[in-house]
């Protein structure tokens, strides 16, 4: 007897749609053992996650605060995914976006609120875009693998920002902490309900809508899809694939860069060490989970926000390390990839006898 896998020709629609949900459930199940090993009742822990992240105005606002940068970064990553370009550098692009926005906030001297916010936004867009664009040029002109370039450039961006806030940009009145001076009122997004919830969230939703229109309705979106589906055919049809690769990586980085803008202008009001706790990497998981849809990105980002906020509270109630949340994210991605396999293949048990 042996177990073999074979290609499935037919996959039911139901299975295809429910596969991500099933993989999350299986991940919850397996993570339950991790929790038990830490001496925590998994059911209570999961209940706590949902209660803390959704059960109060404060919890919900915190969830949306975490959802916001995730939406931006995931939109950026998924845009590149559509063209079969793998942007692993959203984390670095977030830092660069934040860096650009901070430079404007600290040194431009603009006093008008809308002008200041617009300038910060554009700076973040540009900085993030250029950071992604470098990988774009390298890939388009010299076929340098964009995965490696974007990944390594994360370190450059994060350490570069560290240099600034430990050095030239350090707040002289900041008791030597690695952070810049606080932004002026003009450089802050509006906050609501006495919480940390800020208007960056609405910008993120608007951005998702734009991304949807861009991909599904415009001529450029069509071009990106053709190139993603078959780059040779695109070249043969006269499309300028090199330019498109650069443009997409630029745009991908730029949108991720907006996350940096939204974080410093809406939440932290300064540039500081550890500005993003890995949003850029979580974005890769989200983009994968959401498959191709901009709206999917919004929903999955929200779920991840729930998990992050709930995970924080686990730290407080049970002294669980935050690593648990990342382990859980890893499990989800793992089972999701596995579910992809099961969507396309099925296992069959073969009884021995007629052949070995």
């Amino acid at each position: 007897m042996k177990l073999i896998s074979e290609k499935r020709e037919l996959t039911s629609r139901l299975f295809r749609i429910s596969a991500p949900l099933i993989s999350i459930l299986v991940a919850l199940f397996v993570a339950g053992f991790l929790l038990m090993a830490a001496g925590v009742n998994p059911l209570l822990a999961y209940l706590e996650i949902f209660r803390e992240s959704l059960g109060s105005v404060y919890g919900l606002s915190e969830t949306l605060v975490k959802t916001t940068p995730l939406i931006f970064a995931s939109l950026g990553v998924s845009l590149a995914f559509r063209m079969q370009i793998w942007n692993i550098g959203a984390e670095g692009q977030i830092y660069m976006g934040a860096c650009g926005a901070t430079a404007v906030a600290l040194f431009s001297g603009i006093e008008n609120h809308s002008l200041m916010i617009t300038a910060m936004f554009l700076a973040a867009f540009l900085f993030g875009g250029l950071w992604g664009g470098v990988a774009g040029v390298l890939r388009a002109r010299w076929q340098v693998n964009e995965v490696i370039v974007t990944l390594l450039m994360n370190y450059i961006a994060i350490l570069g920002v560290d240099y600034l806030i430990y050095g030239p940009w350090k707040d002289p009145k900041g008791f030597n902490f690695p952070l810049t001076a606080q932004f002026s009122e003009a450089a802050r997004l509006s906050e609501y309900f006495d919480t940390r919830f800020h208007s960056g969230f609405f910008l993120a939703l608007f951005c998702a809508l734009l991304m949807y229109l861009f991909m599904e309705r415009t001529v450029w979106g069509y071009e990106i899809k053709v190139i993603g589906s078959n780059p040779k055919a695109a070249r043969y049809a006269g499309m300028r694939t090199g330019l498109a690769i650069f443009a997409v990586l630029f745009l991908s980085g730029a949108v991720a860069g907006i996350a940096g803008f939204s974080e410093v202008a809406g939440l932290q009001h300064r540039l500081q060490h550890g500005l993003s706790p890995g949003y850029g990497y979580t974005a890769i998981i989200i983009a994968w989970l959401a498959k191709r849809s901009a709206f999917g990105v919004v929903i999955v980002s929200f779920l991840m926000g729930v998990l992050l906020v709930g995970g924080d509270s686990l730290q407080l109630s049970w002294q669980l390390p935050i690593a648990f949340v990342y382990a859980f994210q890893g499990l989800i991605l793992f089972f999701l990839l596995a579910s992809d396999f099961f969507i396309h293949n099925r296992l069959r048990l073969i009884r021995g006898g007629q052949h070995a």
Partner: protein
Amino acid sequence: MSNLLQIKNIRKTFPGVVALDTISLSIARGEIHTLLGENGAGKSTLMNVLTGLYRPDRGEILLDGVSIQLNSPRDSLAMGIGMVHQHFMLVSAHTVFENILLALEGVPNFYSRRTYRQKVQKVLDAFELDLDLDSPVWKLSIGAQQWIELIKLLVRDCRLLILDEPTAVLTPQESARLFQVLTRLRDQGKSILFISHKMREVMEISDRVTVLKKGRSLVSLSRGEYDESRLASLMIGEDQIPMWIKPACKYEQLALEIKNLSARNDRGLADLDNFNMKLYRGQILGVAGVAGNGQKALAEVLTGLKEASSGRILAEGRDITNSTARSSYIAGIAHIPEDRKSIGIAPDMTVGDNLIMKNFASRAFRRWIFQDRAAIRRNASAKINEFAIKAGPDGNPVRYLSGGNIQKVIIARELSEKPAVLVALYPTRGLDIGSAEYVHKVIIDGANQGMSTILISEDLDELLKLSDQIVVMFRGRLVGCVDPQATTREEIGLLMSGEVQS
């Protein structure tokens, strides 16, 4: 004669498609058995069942009278069923010997090179094949690469050899050589399952022919029971072959002139070497040659996918070799590529989206920066009707279509802008007779309206039937130019092999 392999009532369905309905046939020891059928008749599916890639829903396969289960290509090979695919499965950087070694089961990690070399050499000698075992595969001609595939099966002692359109890439002389070997193999008791669209070959080599139609095995006929017209009518059935009249080219207006054109390939070798050619308005110029003698480079330079290294291209007298004028002119050249699946379509996108790939940015399908989805849909249904494309349900990705229908999608797209010049590479390769006739009709219709066609093909019958003039390419040069009315297959064959120049 006893049966080696028996296939009984095989059925195989895919979502929404019955690929094989009921297929029954038997292959005797020591016979060459030909499978004949239109595209979509189920030949490829049946091959894939026999090589263990697909598992039938129903039915039975008997080998030596014993029911067998084929769960993977490995199983099939273990039972002595081997296949030479249309697309070779060779590691091109490795040598011939290494490639053959890969096919052998149970080679120990530290093997005796000499023993295995002798084993391979013995097979080569047995068939008087002249192959350099130490040459890397990429250096060899397509014909030689096909020999490697065949030898891989022979060293494994396969009892049933499946050959999927093996002559598509060969010169007439090479084909004749292959047939000699196949006949010899048959006489030694091997069974051969042969797939071809070329009626002449089928008539020449088959001991028995099984006609497939719409997933059913219609009938198996032994030699003597069939002739060409009987087979054709069985295969096509009641479908009408379109009739057309071919106009004689007037040779008045020059459409395209190529002077001393050279182009290099990635290894710096000449793909096109001092190539000269004239194309007139309304002319169908056939280009014959063994695959890999510069035909593809010619098409690519003309359509702007490749740069010329020297020489000139004149379009209606204007030099368009390397100027901006070229890109605008190129826009007016339609191109049916050689490899339709890998460069002709975006497989995950819909038929409608694929039909506008070349002119997606034109005003007809665009409003400002947005696509005009309604116009794209209208265009799709118009083209689907006009070219009789079996496109399946709305929004069906083009990769679900059969080869013939994918080709129709490409042709519909390429001809939609009323091009002045059509460059068609092997436009009917792998198509069934009905679809091929349709492609021919489109080319002739175009010629009637003044379109000039460069028809690159390996099918001499097709070239002889359509062309006003046939030029022959060898190693990137034009080695001959013949009148299809006055030439013979042998003459063209000799030119193709580079042995004579006319």
